[in-house]
């Protein structure tokens, strides 16, 4: 049976950051959640699976350790994909590849697929994840697998052995087609993902999830990136409240301040 794979990441949740008094952030203190744009990728993958009658698997690689402390969050991210209609999942979790980088993640996905003997015709991913926002893994994976790659798709169809997609670029949109197999990254405009229902969540608990380590995969590329420091952005704004006897006076003061700052030319 033909297979679609969808990439799912348990990402650091940027909404729950704790910045220490010295400005540093300990990433171990940030909980993980499924990356928002992965929800769009899953929604689209489920739609295509239903249309094409293919099997849908999710692949997830743990980036943030320690694994023992992260296992619950990792499982929750994958469970959400399963609840939405993914048939089974492969999770690569190993402290030797955390904190991961995109080189490691792409290699781990490729290795896990090969070890499982799966050669998907189509691989879907979000255009970026909410923690790294780097848009690298799908392109790297396409290059590693020798697949075609279509990035930033806001519309997608699969027909007659090829993908047809609308790529959303900075100032124009282009419709591209490429033969399968292909990797496609999707934007948030592609669909409107709904949360899974309770019934779907209950059913997902029975779906197979295979968790594998580096040694079970015959070794993985180690991360090359060393994180030296993570700091919260200190917003240092002037916080001047402009006051006056009338709105005219305040408007004058504002215009004057903006001219002085060099951001307004009269």
């Amino acid at each position, binding site marked *: 049976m033909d297979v679609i794979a969808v990439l799912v990441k348990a990402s650091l949740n940027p909404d729950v950051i704790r910045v220490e008094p010295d400005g540093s952030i300990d990433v171990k203190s940030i909980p993980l959640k499924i990356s928002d744009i992965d929800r769009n990728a899953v929604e689209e993958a489920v739609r295509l699976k239903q249309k094409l009658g293919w099997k849908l698997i999710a692949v997830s690689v743990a980036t943030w350790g320690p694994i023992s402390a992260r296992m619950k969050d990792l499982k929750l991210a994958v469970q959400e994909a399963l609840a939405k209609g993914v048939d089974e999942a492969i999770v690569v979790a190993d402290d030797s590849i955390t904190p991961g*980088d995109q*080189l490691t993640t792409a290699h781990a996905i490729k290795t896990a697929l090969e070890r499982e003997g799966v050669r998907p015709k189509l691989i879907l991913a979000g255009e970026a994840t909410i923690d790294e*926002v780097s848009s690298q893994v799908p392109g790297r994976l396409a290059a590693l697998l020798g697949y075609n790659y279509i990035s930033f798709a806001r519309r997608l169809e699969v027909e007659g052995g090829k993908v047809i997609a609308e790529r959303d670029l900075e100032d124009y949109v282009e419709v591209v087609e490429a033969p399968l197999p292909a990797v496609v990254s999707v934007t948030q405009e592609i669909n409107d993902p709904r949360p899974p229902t309770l019934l779907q969540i209950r059913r997902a608990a029975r779906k197979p999830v295979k968790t594998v380590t580096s040694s079970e995969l015959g070794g993985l590329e180690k991360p090359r990136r060393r994180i030296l420091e993570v700091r919260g952005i200190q917003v240092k704004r002037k*916080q001047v409240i402009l006051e006056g006897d009338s709105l005219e006076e305040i408007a004058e003061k504002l215009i004057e301040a903006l001219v002085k700052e060099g951001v307004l030319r009269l």
Partner: protein
Amino acid sequence: MKVLGVAYEPRDAGELLRAASSLNAEFHILAAGRAAENAEEVSKYASKAYILKTKSPYSIFKAVESLVKQEGYKLVIGEGYRNLRDALSRVAGSLNMPMATDAYSLEVSGESVVVVRGFLSERARMKVEVPLPAIVLFTQRFTEPAEPLGHGSIVELKPEEGPERVVEVKPKAVGEVNLEEAEIIVGVGRGFRSKEDLKLAFELAELLGGQVGCTRPIAADLKWLSEDRWIGISGKRVSPKLYIAVGISGSPQHMSGVQNARIIVAVNKDKSAPIFKQADYGVVADLYQFLPVLIRKLREKLGR
């Protein structure tokens, strides 16, 4: 060390030269996209400029891949346009190179490169070290362009055709805007009571030669404006000189999108709105009263 800068817009060339100039490196440029249509201009910023007349990420991928292999570039730099993220992530995969995106600064130390980059949806900065050879994509407009060097040699490359076929190219529909390029943005939020009232913001933006952006509810829930105007964590990240937030409370989801604005002005009638702590200049007033006065004053001064 040899450094290759991949320019996509003409102004990238000078900015990438500035990044490379502190590295004591031999700097060459590969110009694609609109930069390739300005070969003479681009060639002023490097001793050699390769011209690749295409926007195709596949063709850019293949050209950079073969230049790195044949010419031994240790570092490839560019700015984070979507087509370059696409092309260079494939180079990174194919040549097994580390890559850092959303970079603000870069230093080379010995055989590795240290990059400060945006992280956690622009709410944090991450300092990382990766071994060379490596790829670094900066945020757009991360620096001022360097002075031109003179005239470098120009080598035209033939784009390699890929399996991906472009069937149609559509400019974004009128009404769609390019907020990333705007120098002045007037942002609108729930303080506006109706879609019609947004004309106040449009009038102000037009007067200042700026654009109108908005918060999530205005685009996604109320659909008063198209989503290309949505600024924030799931919308656009912008870096105007001036951001005027009108009727915006200042949620972190929205504010992370304007973090790189040079000056932020807030107009809000609620003096306890969080926006005032994140603004340079605050006006505590009803926008329906204040905007007409501000617009009138600006018209007088601008003579329009």
